[in-house]
Structures are given as C-alpha cells and as structure tokens.
C-alpha cells in the first residue's frame, strides 16, 4: 500500500514537466512556450517569493495613510466633518446600524489586515521550508485569494456617495487621501497574492 501511495505522489516537477498556468497543458521543462495556448511556461511562477514580499511590504506601507487620513470629508451647513475608515465604523455603531458597521469593519479593516498577515505567514513558511501542515497552508492561500476583492466595498461606497451628492443639494462630500491609499492597498495585495505560487507549499 505504501509503495502504491509513493508511486501516486509524483509531481510535475519530479518528472521535469511544466504545467501551463493558462490551459494546464503539460510540457517538458525545456519548452518555453506552451504549444497549446502560446503562453510562457515556467516550472514555478518566476521570483514568486521576492515579488510577493515586495508587494506585501508596499501594501503595509500604504495601509498606514489609509487608516490615518480621512476617507471622506463632509461639508454640511458650513461645517466640515472628516472621517477615517475606523471613524465611520464607530459612527455606524453609535447610530445603531451595526450590520453595516460589521460589513465595513470586516471589508475595510479585518480583511486587509488578515490578508497581509496570512500572506506574510505563507511566505515565511515557504521560505523556512516548514511543511508540517501543508493542507492548512493551501486552505489559507485559497482564503487569501478569495477574500481580497471584497475590500473594495468602501472604495465603491465613496464613489457612489460622491457621485450622488456632487450635484450639491445641501451637503458636499469630498473623497480624502485615505480612500486613495486604501484603493492602492487592495490592488497591491491582490497582485501580491497573485504572485504567490501555492505549489511552493508542497515542494520539498
């Protein structure tokens, strides 16, 4: 039984085959263009770890202004009220609409932080060649991939708010630096997780 299992656990890399990222066609590692879909072939994504780290660190740096600077400034009746991401969560909590507070908290604060930590953890594990719980790491990778796009909620909220209110009835809403930095965080983390190659988790 054990010999059969070992026989089954052969990877494409063991056979010196590269699997096309685009169409899954297998080719010998000496071929550099997929014969089926003409996309470039690699055994693993090129410089996956370095690129992921670079983008991840960029995201961490952008996250600081995203949290500190106001996301929107509301001009109403001669007063200016600027609110940050965390500020709008607290505002919703205080005004009693806690379902929305939870949505914004999860999408704009919890998801980006967990995504950055999760991807950082994956990268550290791959670099230190920790291979005890590969299946959990793969699941973590899938979560990081799935969850990232949902952080865009707040960006869209600002876009709609600004458009609706711009035709100035009695209030005026101006987007702040915070939301620009936050948009960049979401995009950069999405690129970072795309650069990560989950097959590195399984390479021994």
């Amino acid at each position, binding site marked *: 039984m054990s010999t059969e299992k070992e026989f*089954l*656990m052969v*990877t*494409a890399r*063991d*056979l010196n*085959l590269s*699997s096309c*990222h*685009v*169409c*899954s*066609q*297998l080719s010998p590692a000496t071929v550099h263009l997929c014969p*089926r*879909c*003409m*996309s470039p072939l690699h055994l693993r994504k090129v410089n996956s770890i370095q690129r992921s780290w670079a983008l991840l660190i960029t995201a961490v740096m952008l996250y600081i202004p995203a949290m500190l600077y106001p996301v929107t400034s509301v001009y109403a009746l001669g007063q200016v009220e600027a609110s940050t991401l965390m500020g709008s969560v607290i505002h*919703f909590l205080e*005004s009693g*609409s806690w379902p*929305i507070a939870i*949505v*914004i908290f999860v*999408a704009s604060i919890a998801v980006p932080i967990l995504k950055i930590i999760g991807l950082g953890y994956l990268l550290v594990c791959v670099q230190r060649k920790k291979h005890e719980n*590969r*299946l959990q790491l*793969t699941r973590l*990778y*899938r979560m990081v991939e799935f969850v990232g*796009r*949902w952080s*865009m*909620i*707040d*960006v*869209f*909220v*600002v*876009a*709609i*708010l*600004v*458009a*609706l*209110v*711009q*035709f100035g*009835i*009695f*209030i005026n809403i101006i*987007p702040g630096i915070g*939301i*620009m930095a936050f*948009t960049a965080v979401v*995009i950069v983390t999405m690129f970072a997780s795309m650069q990560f190659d989950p*097959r590195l*988790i*399984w*390479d021994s």
Partner: protein
Amino acid sequence: MDLEKLIACHECDLIHERKPICEGQAALCQRCGASLYAEKVDMITRTLALNLTALILYMISVSLPFLGIEARGIVVEINLFQSVTALYKLDMKMMSIVVCIVLLIVPALRILGMLSILIPLKINKVPPHSKWTYYIVEWIAPWNMIEVFLIGILVTFVKLGSLANILPGVSFWAFAALVVVIIASNISVERHRFWDQLEPIR
C-alpha cells in the same frame, strides 16, 4: 509518456491521470482537493445564453438612470458613468480609473470576449482569435468586481438614508440582475474543458 493524458494540480503540482467524468461532476486533486477539471452540463450553450443575457443587462445598466437622490423635494438622478466621472472631476483620477476598470471595462470585455468565442463555437467553428481572447478574458477575471459594487450600493443606502431618500432607478435592477447572471456564467464555464474545446486533446 503521453502528456495529454496527464494533468498536474495547479495548486500542489501533483500529477493525475485524466479520466473521463460524467456531466455535472468535477475531478479533484487527491492531495490538496483543488478542482482539476469539471464537466459542466451544456457548457457552451449555457454560457452563451448567459453571456447574451448579460450583454443586454449591461447595456441597460449603463444607459438608464441608476440611482436617484431625493432631498427637500428635489430629485437628482445619476447613471453608472457618473460614479466614475464625479471622482475624476474631484481630482481623484487614480481612483476613478480603478473604479472605471473594475466596474465598467472588465465586465464589458469579458462579455464581449466570451461572446466572440462562444458564437462561432456554437456553430462548430473555432475562431482564430479565440486563444488570445480567452487568455485575456481569464486574465482579467479577478478584476471583475460588480458584485462588490452591489454591496457598496447597499452600504450607501444606509449611509445616506438619514439625510436623503435614495431611489433605485431602472438600471439599478438591471445591474442587480447582471450581477447574478455574470456569477452564473462564471460557474457555467470551466477553464480546462474550455481550452479543450478551443484545441481538443487528441
């Protein structure tokens, strides 16, 4: 070794033998559980139908009034384009470009790209541009964020609810339907089997 009979898991690189599976079934990697390939029911026909529906809904969504805001008896209506142009006018150019791409351009490219492959496939022709078109369609797929936008609208409803009345316009409902249809069309197509359609494995 016959390479066409083998497939490597795209998440853990384990080699599997391709075996025919029944309609509606999926082949999973035995080590990490990722989907290797799946046999969708009526893949080409269903995806074509859903993409045609999506095209119609998309055209309605962008052309008719999207949301109205009513305060002190005045109603102002905006369409989807204005959520992009308003940001641009306020000098948030980077943000308006991002919103424009993930909300308007990517969905349109996906629908048109898929239709340009699916309509010829339906009459048993493989168009010469199909490979690079499908390559682009797959590459831009993660940037299609209209379902996230829909949740954003719901949050805005609550946010402005105390200040003004928000009235969903005709195209809001078309847009909500578009989200459902696009998700359905993403589920109805399977990448590996679709590539096999473009160049059958011998």
